[in-house]
């Protein structure tokens, strides 16, 4: 495997980690936005509680993806940033407002406006961000994004817009599945399990329907990628479909730990299916991975640094997730 392909693989893995970890954090914000009825406040508290220790570490996966892209494929990065400036600017605004609103609500003690205000900001920003990132990713497949295609180009096809909606439903689905398990670990929130179970089933169904709408649009608006999709991505599609239906089945059977695995696998399969069809283009028609790559010595240095870095970070990440996985009563 060449250094270019290896770096692409690292970036895709990091993107998958971001989708599974931070994606669920954004999806939890979607459920915060949609929370209604007598449970609403307790749902929001459960969501805030689940996010607390992990959301910042989860967020770093995005920074890692950005840095790896501009370090490894500098000329493509400049071009992609220009072509996607509008959706990326909205995603950024969402990221900033989500993070700020979360800590202002958690630590503000009401000094800077009521908690409900920051709760709204948190929820809306959490919903906007995955939509914009979904639009951005899909726009790279269309071949309509160039350095001077104008700020509205990424929004100009049905495919990118539906892909944005798809990203939101997928994050909501992941969040609901994770929260089913989280709610069940504490007697105080056990009664919320059926609430999130219903939400998980609903989100899975909606995501399925949206993905059915997305496929024909892919063939219509992104022909190059669609062609490679037919050639290469069928195994991933099969995996995604099996795990998608499998998730519905195991959620139905109330096996929430298993549901986490099937849901995560389904999401990763979708991502890999897209990545396989996108290869070797970074932005279809304007930048391939090989042409935009940095010098070989720099790529090797990057990969070595990433190897050592991951050897330190992954165990630490595991400890973080482990420490906060059980209820607090387990504490020493």
């Amino acid at each position, binding site marked *: 495997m060449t250094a270019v392909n290896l770096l692409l693989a690292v970036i895709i893995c990091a993107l998958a980690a971001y989708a599974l970890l931070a994606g669920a954090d954004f999806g939890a914000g979607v459920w915060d936005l949609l929370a209604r009825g007598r449970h609403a406040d307790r749902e929001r508290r459960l969501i805030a509680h689940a996010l*607390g*220790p992990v959301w*910042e*570490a989860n*967020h*770093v996966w995005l*920074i890692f993806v*950005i*840095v*790896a892209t*501009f*370090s*490894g*494929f*500098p*000329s493509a*990065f*400049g*071009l992609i*940033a220009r072509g996607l400036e509008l959706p*990326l600017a909205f995603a*950024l*605004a969402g*990221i*900033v*407002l*989500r*993070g*700020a609103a*979360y*800590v*202002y609500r*958690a*630590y*503000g*003690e009401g*000094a*800077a*406006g009521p908690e409900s205000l920051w709760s709204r900001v948190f929820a809306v920003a959490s919903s906007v961000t995955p939509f914009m990132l979904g639009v951005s990713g899909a726009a790279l497949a269309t071949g309509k994004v160039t350095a*001077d295609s104008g*700020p509205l180009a990424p929004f100009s096809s049905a495919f990118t817009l539906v892909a944005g909606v798809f990203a939101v439903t997928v994050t909501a689905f992941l969040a609901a599945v994770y929260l089913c398990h989280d709610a069940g670990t504490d007697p105080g929130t056990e009664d919320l399990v059926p609430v999130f179970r219903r939400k998980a089933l609903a989100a899975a169904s909606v995501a399925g329907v949206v993905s059915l709408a997305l496929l024909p649009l892919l063939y219509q608006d992104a022909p190059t990628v669609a062609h490679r999709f037919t050639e290469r991505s069928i195994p991933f599609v099969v995996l995604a479909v099996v795990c998608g239906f499998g998730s519905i089945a195991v959620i139905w059977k109330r096996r929430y730990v298993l549901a986490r695995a099937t849901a995560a696998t389904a999401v990763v399969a979708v991502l890999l299916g897209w990545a396989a069809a996108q290869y070797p283009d970074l932005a279809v028609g304007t930048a391939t991975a090989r042409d935009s*790559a*940095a*010098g070989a*010595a*720099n790529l*090797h240095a*990057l990969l070595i*640094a990433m190897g050592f*870095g991951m050897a*330190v*970070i992954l165990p*630490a*990440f595991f*400890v*973080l997730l482990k*420490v*906060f996985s059980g209820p*607090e009563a387990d504490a*020493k």
Partner: protein
Amino acid sequence: MLGSTLTDARVQTGFSLAFHIVFAVFGVGLPWLLIVTEGRWLRTGDAVWLALTRKWSRVMAVLFAIGAVSGTVLSFEFGLLWPAFMARYGGVLGLPFTLEAFAFFAEAIFVGLYLYGWKRLSPRAHWLTLWPIAISGTLSTLFIVTANSWMNVPTGVKEVGGKVVSAEPLAPLTGPGALPESLHMLLAAIMCTGGVVAAVYAVGMLRGRRDAYHRRGFGVGLVAVLAAAPVQLVVGDLAARVVEKYQPAKLAAMEALPHTRDHAPLTLGGIYDPDTGKTRFGLEIPDGLSLLTGFRTDKTIRGLDILPAKEQPATPVVHLAFDTMVGAGMAILGLAALLAVVAVWRRRKGVRPLIPLSRPWLVAGALTGPAAMAAMLAGWEVTEAGRQPWIVYGRMTVREAATTSGGIGWSLAATVLVYLGLAAALVLILRRLATGAPPSLAAEAGGPGPEPQDPDEDARAAQDSETAELEGAAR
């Protein structure tokens, strides 16, 4: 002018950087202070240390999050506002940025463990999680500033026709400016954190809250800012020597020196007039600059005239910013020297606490916070404005690097609006957090409010805790 894409891009970058730096310095400095306060609490079990720790960890939680999201904005802005710069040099700067991403990973992971792990970790394990936070915060400062130092002194890169044909991966980390500049920023972060912490508690004491909680908070912050000051003088001098060697025009702008000459004077303050080359209202010390730079009065110093006028940096701004930084730094250093003498004298006389807490001293201590922040921001102004018109010194101008996209005005307006709103909310929250000792501590001390305690009693308590600490160390 505002409204041109280039200016808007520069203003947006400068504004985003300033916003990020003002809050990110506390993410670097506070973990080191927390290691002290929580460590003291572990050894002594004294509730005051715990109260300080709890309070500062809440502040760190908010500021770390703001630093994290505003840092993300910057990483996007490189591409959004300076696409040509990233396209050409992104690969060269890849290694420091990647290392910084890992340092940030470690920081975020352990911040999560620290902030939410009070009940899930043993007290000792909880204290230990501060070390990776402090170390990785420090490392991320060092890595990120090496990228800036490479933009100032770009070494190790071969270019043909505006394309990088080969670049040493380690060049940004081993460049001549890397170590002095990054250490300079690290010390600045510690000084800003210490100074602002000292300022908060000094103001509290000036308002009559003279309890042990305020005294110790003041002491820890003040020691941090004052102890770093003399080291900063040495590191800053090393950084200036790198500038003199590799960016002579920047040094000339810093010192408002229009013409290359020997016996160069040192001009303190004043407004430089680019048309006449004279500095009005400045204080001129004959031979000063030659003496400082070359240790002899006839050393020749290169002036602004080594470059044509349109390639010179904006000297009036750079000179004033530089003198603001040096002036503020020297004032802090002066206070450090004075307090060191006073502390030695009080120790000999057996007077406690070693740091006097009468009004003038508290006012001076409170001023270290704004002084350190002003020095830090002014220092960045020197580095960045002094590099102009280059984005990568001698290789690429900011004009070549900037985006050609329209609509930057909107993005600038939105950035300023959102950031000002967030900053206003943040200030309100920090003000709420800064109001006095937690009620539990006040109740424990036997009074609800800012009751001044018997100073002798506190001195004894301080000695007791010192003894306990020595015993702890002996074990």
